[in-house]
């Protein structure tokens, strides 16, 4: 029994408020593809991905049409390649990146994640080769996404890896200078990385995951924004309650799509990632939700509190709507992918420091942030270190996806197009952190890691 009002509420969410499922991501274990001969390993990888994911796009598209709910992306995540390739005799892993790219193209997905390494405590031989290949892999392939976990609450922060990532990001930007440093938009540095995240660029298929799994990432900032707008003048209790109920409804759609996709593909259903993922479309913005709560511009005083309320209410509502919640689960604040965030930066309301504060209370971190092309590798490493410290101390995931845009200065723009959007170049502090970063070693795990 449903009412016309309920049916029209759902229709309106899709037609007017940009409700969509952001991604169905198939996680595939490649552990059985390891081989001493890199070419043989890559043949196995290509065969396995194309065999398992061959129907992913068509199944996703038919579900989208039957339920009348757009499914924006169909994607693939794989076991970190540093693990799969480690026993091979290859000196570098370019062949593996090219194989991932080719397999993704063959099955028709726009991104494949898992050119990854987990180096939070130290770097192995395979990790080292993978890290060295990242700039070439991101410049030389179209669909491959890379991620590196450099810190956990249990292990502390691998500052050698943080220092290295600063240089890798600079190198990647340089090699993709003709595209505003696009390669860096496909590279995420993490603390406490989740192993079942369906969202790119940070998705990979964790080592505790099954052979193959279907994970779903939801979206829906536009729906939450409209719900908040209707609550003019209501107190915070009412605000949180409304966001919770809205998140519940959005998450139910993710649960439905995930379960249906898993059933049709004959694979286990993993998790729903209850994240509010914005797009560059006007009205589909997390920043605009915060502004609808009563802030003149995102980034002004009060923004962190507003985001904390939003993030918590989304989790509470979403957790009740799905049997398995995982991934990043929270509000995303990528600058280039959110029209409200872009405007806030343009109007000088939002700076890198406030953005960093916001990452303390939401799901990810400094995401899709463009900085001047002459920003040094050490400064980028220091920005990463700050973000990792927030994650490690607060026992949460944090990440950095930063683009030192070649040849650009503050006030310029980088243009990536599509879902990656466009970003105004933001100011970084001019004072050096080089001596700090050069120390090397590992920042020990915090006292509260001793929880056993």
């Amino acid at each position: 029994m449903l009412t016309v009002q309920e049916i029209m509420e759902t229709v309106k969410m899709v037609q007017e408020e940009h409700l969509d499922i952001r991604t169905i991501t198939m996680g595939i274990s490649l552990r059985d593809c390891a081989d001493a001969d890199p070419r043989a390993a890559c043949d196995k990888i290509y065969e396995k991905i194309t065999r398992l994911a061959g129907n992913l796009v068509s199944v996703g598209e038919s579900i989208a049409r039957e339920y009348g709910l757009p499914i924006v992306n169909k994607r693939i995540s794989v076991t970190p390649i540093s693990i799969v390739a480690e026993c091979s005799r290859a000196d570098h892993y370019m062949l593996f990146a090219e194989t991932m790219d080719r397999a993704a193209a063959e099955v028709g997905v726009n991104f494949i994640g898992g050119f990854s390494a987990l180096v939070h405590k130290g770097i192995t031989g395979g990790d080292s080769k993978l890290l060295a290949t990242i700039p070439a892999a991101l410049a030389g392939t179209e669909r491959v996404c890379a991620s590196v976990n450099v810190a956990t609450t249990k292990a502390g922060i691998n500052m050698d890896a943080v220092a290295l990532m600063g240089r890798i990001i600079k190198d990647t930007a340089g090699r993709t200078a003709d595209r505003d440093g696009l390669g860096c938009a496909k590279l995420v540095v993490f603390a406490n990385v989740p192993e079942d995240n369906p969202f790119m660029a940070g998705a990979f298929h964790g080592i505790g995951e099954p052979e193959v799994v279907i994970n779903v990432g939801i979206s829906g900032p536009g729906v939450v924004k409209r719900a908040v707008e209707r609550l003019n003048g209501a107190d915070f209790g009412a605000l949180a309650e409304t966001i919770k109920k809205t998140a519940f409804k959005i998450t139910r759609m993710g649960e439905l799509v995930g379960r249906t996709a898993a059933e049709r593909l004959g694979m286990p259903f993993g998790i729903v990632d209850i994240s509010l993922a914005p797009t560059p479309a006007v009205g589909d913005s997390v920043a605009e939700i915060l502004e609808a709560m009563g802030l003149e511009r995102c980034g002004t005083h009060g923004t962190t509190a507003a985001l904390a309320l939003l993030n918590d209410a989304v989790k509470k509502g979403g957790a009740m709507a799905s049997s398995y919640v995982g991934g990043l689960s929270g509000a995303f604040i990528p600058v280039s992918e959110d029209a409200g965030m872009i405007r806030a930066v343009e109007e000088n309301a939002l700076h890198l420091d406030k953005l960093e504060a916001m990452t303390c209370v939401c799901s990810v971190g400094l995401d899709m942030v463009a900085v001047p092309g002459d920003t040094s590798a050490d400064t980028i490493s220091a920005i990463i270190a700050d973000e990792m410290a927030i994650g490690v101390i607060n026992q949460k995931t944090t990440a950095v996806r930063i683009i030192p845009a070649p040849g650009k200065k503050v006030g310029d723009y980088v243009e990536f197009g599509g879902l990656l959007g466009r970003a105004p170049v933001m100011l970084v502090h001019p004072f050096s952190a080089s001596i700090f970063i050069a120390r090397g070693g590992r920042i020990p795990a915090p006292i509260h890691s001793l929880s056993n």
Partner: protein
Amino acid sequence: MKYLNLDQNPGNRVIVTVIGPDRVGIIAGVTGIMAENNVNILDISQTIMQEFLVMVLIGDMGKSTTDLLELKDRLNAKGTALGIRIDAQHEDAFKFMHRL
């Protein structure tokens, strides 16, 4: 508040939504396509929201001669011809969101 009849043949029903300016022939157009494809109409409800006609039909696909995606395409095309928006979605999209 009127509840739409969703008690018969659960699991194989389609919810057709029609939104647009009222005009002659909308019901005839929608139900004509459903009849052509042997989709039995279980319930119809219509109302006016902000000057727009809003109509919801529940169809039983059990004996339909087509599948949901094909029906959806035909209804979409009819909607375009009539200058209104007609969509067809599986009932689960609504039940999952609004009912536990």
